[in-house]
């Protein structure tokens, strides 16, 4: 294996002659590359009566394009060991491409076809629709999905974020081929295309590939307007399910990656519930009391309403105690910032572990994409640890009040005992 220096990852901004931008981390040691891209084309832009459109569309982009019908397209991918996956979340439609160097040109050509000439033949539309329906039915018996879905539905009632990304059986049944064609024509545009690439490719080669692949996309998107929104808080909702253990989702507004308070929020979240065994919630809920196998929290980058979310699962008879412990710890952090020791430990973890998150092409491509989506700049990898070290006690006091002073929204799937529902 080729040896390389142990310095920080070098990131280039590649701008093709046609104006397509990507962040690139060139890494020649293994002969393949990973690419991840996103469009602002997610479920939030779906019409209410056709919720699930972006998700269904993502499932169909690799199901036939240009001269290839579905099986022929899949055969091109599989025979060439090319991995192409598409998915939609609330905000974005994301595509991941992984290809060996030997098949690179062909891989980008298949990606171009998927984005610009998807066929949407009747057979794959009905097949993928059937898969989405089967998946939804399976999720109905998944308490984690039920609790999470209920959280978003209550927090964002009346807003696009409150609708299920995957739709409902009724809305999925209404989606027709014209809707899929329109989504591709109107939402997949170059204006908000963001791309991260890591692996065996140079800047010049990539620039050529970018133009050949993306030049055919429209310059501007035509999307319905969407409004920023604040989650509704305060309720504790119970979703009855006949299971021995209750699964809980809880959350509040968070902080977005481009916010000056983001790194302080990352530290606060690490101390409370983001740090595994190093976090207060794990200590109180699992280590001291054996109430749960896992309890965790994280910052979710929702473009219109950044969130701080968490989860815990505890036997029905004891779950009320777990939820109370979460409330107590949240309130405590709202009153008083973490100790100096906790802040120092969080900083050494967050800075020391940063290179661990950049050790594969897939991870790097995803990180570079995130940097572009959130406008963090080409030099973010170099600056990031300095930003964490620079967070002061007063920043944390401010951010802890901002994040944790106030009510939670809590949803519980199961048969919890002793919960006011």
């Amino acid at each position: 294996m080729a040896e390389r220096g142990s310095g920080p990852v070098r990131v280039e901004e590649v701008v093709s002659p046609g104006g397509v931008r990507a962040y690139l981390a060139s890494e020649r040691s293994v002969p393949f590359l990973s690419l991840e891209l996103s469009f602002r084309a997610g479920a939030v832009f779906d019409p209410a009566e056709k919720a699930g459109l972006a998700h269904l569309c993502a499932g169909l982009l690799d199901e036939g394009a240009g001269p290839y019908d579905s099986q022929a397209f899949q055969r091109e991918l599989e025979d060439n060991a090319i991995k192409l996956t598409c998915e939609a979340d609330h905000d974005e439609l994301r595509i991941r491409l992984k290809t060996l160097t030997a098949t690179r040109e062909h891989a980008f050509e298949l990606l171009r076809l998927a984005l610009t000439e998807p066929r949407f033949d009747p057979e794959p539309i009905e097949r993928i629709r059937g898969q989405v329906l089967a998946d939804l039915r399976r999720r109905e018996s998944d308490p984690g999905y039920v609790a999470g879905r209920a959280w978003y539905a209550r927090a964002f009632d009346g807003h696009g974020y409150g609708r299920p990304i995957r739709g409902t059986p009724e809305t999925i049944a209404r989606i027709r081929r014209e809707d899929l064609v329109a989504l591709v024509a109107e939402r997949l545009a170059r204006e908000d295309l963001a791309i991260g690439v890591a692996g065996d490719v140079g800047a010049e080669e990539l620039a050529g590939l970018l133009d050949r692949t993306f030049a055919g996309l429209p310059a501007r998107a035509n999307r319905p307007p969407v409004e920023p929104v604040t989650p509704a808080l305060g309720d504790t909702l119970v979703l009855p399910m006949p299971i021995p253990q209750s699964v809980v989702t809880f959350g509040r507004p968070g902080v977005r990656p481009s916010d000056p308070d983001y790194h302080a929020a990352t530290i606060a979240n690490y101390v409370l519930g983001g740090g595994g065994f190093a976090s207060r919630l794990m200590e109180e809920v699992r280590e001291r009391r054996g109430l749960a196998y896992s309890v965790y929290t994280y910052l979710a980058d929702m473009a219109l309403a950044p969130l701080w979310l968490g989860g815990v699962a505890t036997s029905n008879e004891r779950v009320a105690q777990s939820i109370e412990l979460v409330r107590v710890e949240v309130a405590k952090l709202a009153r008083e910032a973490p100790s100096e020791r906790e802040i120092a430990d969080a900083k050494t973890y967050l800075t020391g572990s940063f290179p661990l998150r950049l050790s594969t092409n897939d991870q790097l491509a995803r990180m570079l994409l995130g940097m572009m989506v959130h406008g963090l700049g080409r030099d973010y990898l170099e600056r990031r640890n300095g930003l964490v070290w620079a967070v002061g006690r007063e920043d944390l006091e401010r951010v802890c009040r901002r994040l944790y002073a106030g009510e939670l929204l809590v949803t519980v799937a199961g048969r919890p005992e002793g919960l006011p529902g």
Partner: protein
Amino acid sequence: MSDIGLIPITGAVPTAMFNPTTFTLANGMRVVVVTNRRAPVVAHYVWYRVGCADSPAGKSGLPHFLEHLMFKGTRRVPPGEFSKIVARNGGNDNAFTSYDYTAYFQMIAKDRLDLVMGLEADRMADLDLSDEHVYPERDVILEERKQRVDNEPQALLAEAIQAAQFLHHPYRLPIIGWLHEIASYTREDAVAFYERWYSPSNAILIAVGDIDAEELAPLAERHYGGLPARPVPERRRVQEPPQYAARRIELADPKVRQPSLVRSYLAPNQRPEDHREAAALEVLFELLGEGATSRLYRSLVVEQGLAAAAGAGYQPWSLDPTAARIYASPRPGVPLERLEPALDAEIAELLDGGVGEDELERCKRRMIAESIYARDSLGGVARILGMALCTGLDLDAVEAWPQRIAAVEKAEVEAAARAVLVPAHSVTGRLLPVEASGDG
């Protein structure tokens, strides 16, 4: 560019996967190193050749319980501090247990490797268990079982299929253990198990990343070399008798909305003396059920439109004979009574008609090409090597994998299919909504 032909992926079949270096310490501890300098990071794994198929009678899952207790402290490291120390040094750590192995790992900056090796060696020899830490952890395991199994009808069915597939061999036990046996674990059970199995002579160190054997050897010697070896019993599990009866299992539950079908077959493991049958089976299950152009997906999902999903899987790295699986999930409105005969017809077609030369070559070429991706993940490389070494194989089983797949012949795949896809060796599991069971 509308007429692109098939592109040859690569030329020669690779003769190596990861180029590991290996040596053994005087106390019998095996060490394996794979160098990858792309980031100043090392994946440090310690594997023990013991897993849940080695559970003491009546204590199913005890090896997994011990995995949890290994984080509970030693005379030097206070309870619960292990992971906190790793985190304070910018590392991630965790552990996992399967039937044939238990493994502990840290991902850490290279300049902190010395520290985590010291911690790992310390708990190999000096675990200090007290009641106030053992018993709350037993509650954690009970919650883990509820989360992973008892809350999920699909997982309960999988557990029942596994128990039915193996009539006698301990692979019939759930890795996490039966609920009532978890509740019976004592501190003494854990200590006895630890003393029996956690010896350096039963351990394997695997380091992958910004390090080579020359740098690792003195560290391994310093931290692990001084630990005294204890004799460790040979792993001799009771073996399966011949199986004569096809088994059918059904789980009907009011929570189930989406039915599914699983067919499990007893299947040979890869053995050092015979790599060929396992390689043929890997290819067989790949062309049968991996990806959108596989036989099962193409027929059941695309052409007949009966299934939403269909596929197959076989993992040959197992200390004893194992199980291979085929699964399908119906499209809404299609009863399992229609799906299962269609699945059986595909199997019959394979047994009667054999496999095509072109189909076989495409499949083998893809498997070999995709193996290049496995080189990218430090932890992934450590896991592949550790699994092989804990299931009775050596490093050549990993390094020669592309060559073994390339050598698989059509007649071998067909013979493997006839040997394995035998109804008398099978379990058919059906997950159903409660209405369909007929008893409400």
